[in-house]
């Protein structure tokens, strides 16, 4: 059971970080579909900086910084120039795919996968002397990811800027009418999402594994987008969606071992998430009609 939980937490952490970023954007009224590309970019820059500096933590810092800068490619067109954020996201996702593969060949001289014994990965908590069950084999970014969800929930609900961000997402004109600078908040949200995706990418490439592989975000950004759609403005619900999805995925692996076809295991997280939605919605409906 511990192993199962640990597997779910590891698999979920990068998705949770990306989803949290997407959620901030969605709260501010920007639909962020660029998470997939940013996660990939974060993974690449994390490996790059870890490789260059020999320090995993500098890798993390580099990823956060570089991905925040990368997020400008979404925030400037979508917020300042009012381009359709979805189209821009399609463009930046494609760009990230090409750019990481291209730079990988230029910098590491090899295509496909880059790994090296010298590449510094994140230490596990156990290695840092914190051998808690379930969390022990995780990198410190895993508990940080979950703490960030709590922090975001608190921030949105209990702080001045959190309240303003929620207001801006609900009714931008009303926010303007009381003198809030809507674009500034939206830029901050999109760039913050970039930073979180950088963190998520770093966890993926230096925590989950210690390597970079072309396209290794492998749809995690899209799962995060689904979680954002389900969660609305509620970080805890977003976390719940990510965990449900991750648990269904881990369960799928185990059932594959018992002969479940790969395709069924692939479909399981989506089907289970949809079923959970249907059950919750139906229960709510019954409640109101009784």
């Amino acid at each position, binding site marked *: 059971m511990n192993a199962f939980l640990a597997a779910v937490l590891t698999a979920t952490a990068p998705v949770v970080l990306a989803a949290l970023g997407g959620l901030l954007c969605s709260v501010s009224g920007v639909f962020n579909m660029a998470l997939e590309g940013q996660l990939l970019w974060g993974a690449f820059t994390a490996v790059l900086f870890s490789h260059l500096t020999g320090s995993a933590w500098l890798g993390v810092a580099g990823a956060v910084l570089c991905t925040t800068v990368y997020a400008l*490619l979404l925030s400037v*067109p979508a917020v300042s*120039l*009012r*381009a*359709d954020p*979805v*189209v*821009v996201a*399609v*463009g*930046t*996702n*494609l*760009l*990230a*795919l*090409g*750019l990481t*593969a*291209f730079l990988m*060949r230029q910098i590491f001289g090899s295509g496909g996968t880059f790994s090296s014994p010298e590449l510094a990965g994140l230490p596990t908590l156990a290695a840092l002397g914190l051998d808690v069950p379930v969390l022990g084999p995780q990198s410190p970014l895993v508990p940080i990811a979950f703490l960030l969800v709590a922090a975001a929930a608190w921030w949105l609900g209990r702080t001045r800027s959190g309240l303003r961000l929620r207001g801006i997402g609900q009714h931008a004109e009303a926010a303007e009418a009381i003198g809030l600078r809507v674009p500034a908040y939206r830029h901050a949200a999109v760039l913050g999402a970039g930073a979180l995706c950088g963190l998520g990418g770093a966890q993926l490439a230096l925590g989950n594994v210690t390597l970079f592989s072309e396209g290794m975000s492998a749809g995690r950004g899209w799962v995060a*987008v*689904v979680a954002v*759609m*389900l969660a609305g403005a509620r970080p805890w619900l977003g976390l719940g969606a990510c965990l449900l999805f991750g648990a269904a995925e881990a369960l799928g692996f185990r059932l594959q071992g018992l002969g479940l*076809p790969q*395709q*069924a295991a*692939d*479909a399981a997280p*989506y*089907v289970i*998430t*949809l079923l959970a*939605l*249907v059950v919750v*919605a*139906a229960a709510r*409906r019954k409640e109101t009609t009784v």
Partner: protein
Amino acid sequence: MTPRTETAPEPGAALESRWRRVVWSPSVVAVAGALLLTTLVMLAVGVDPFLAYPALVRGALMDGNLEYTLAAYVPTLGMAVAFAIPLRAGEFNLGGDGQLALGGIAAAALALHAGGSFVLPLIGAALAGALLAGVSAPLHTRLGIPAIVSTLLLSAPAVSLASYLARFPLAERGTGLAQTPLLPDAAHLPALGSSTYVTIALPLVAVLTVLWLLADARTVPGYEIRALGANREFARYGGVRVNRLAAVTLAAGGAFAGLVGGLIVLGAPYRFVDGALTAPGYTFTAIAAVLLAAGRPPAIPAAVALLTILQAGGQGMEREAGVPSQLTQIVQGLIIVFVAVTTVTRTLRARRRA
């Protein structure tokens, strides 16, 4: 955003201002800017633009490549309409991949087991897509799960189901790939002229698209769909059967996507190859094209053409100029961002004029 006064131009200034308007028209700016950007990227990585650009044009439009560009244009246009129909009613259909794959496998199954011409498989494909997308309608109206979520969540399982069918019950034996056997000749789409890849799918999708454009602009259901998308309560108030109409648009979008799946499978190489329908990314290219068209349906075919030519030309560049495929992706990504930005200034300007 300061609105400027539009006064009637003086006669002398009219010509000059028209000339200026052409030069600064957003499409010219978009193309020029995109070219500049691309050239800079090429020079930065040491690709000769004088080799790459002709290769891009040839790769998309000449040397027999036009056939393949059209072969990509048809499904992308179909998927664009599949996204655009429900969008007019305010529903987001993000499940194009699932509808496409399900339509494709349905067509293959019917062609293999029901025999006959391509007509029945195409109908089956459209029905399969419509059914899958249609499920999202009651999920929305009865349970309040938005279509944008349910279509996306239903897509992956549908792709998996199609993949499972191609891998097991409908699989061809003795090959390394997960694919169905070759479909019987009668089910193959008739080709237009000598080309294998330009089939009656082209006129079929073109006619259906034109019919939709006409329906959107010049029929009562088209009007009702637009009203529904603009304000659901307003439409309900005006006697529009909103739930049913929303379901109809979702199903129609799904039918389009399913049909596209069928058209791909019934064309060369005349079988359902696992992953082949979703690998080219028609769904998201189509979504980008529709959003680029920014609420003007007649602009959709042009937006689709732009993105398709870019992709087909990109492949030509890879082949001829030895541009690595990653570079093509970089250029395409930049151009999409760029075009997204320039389209908006156009709509903003149009809004100002209104």
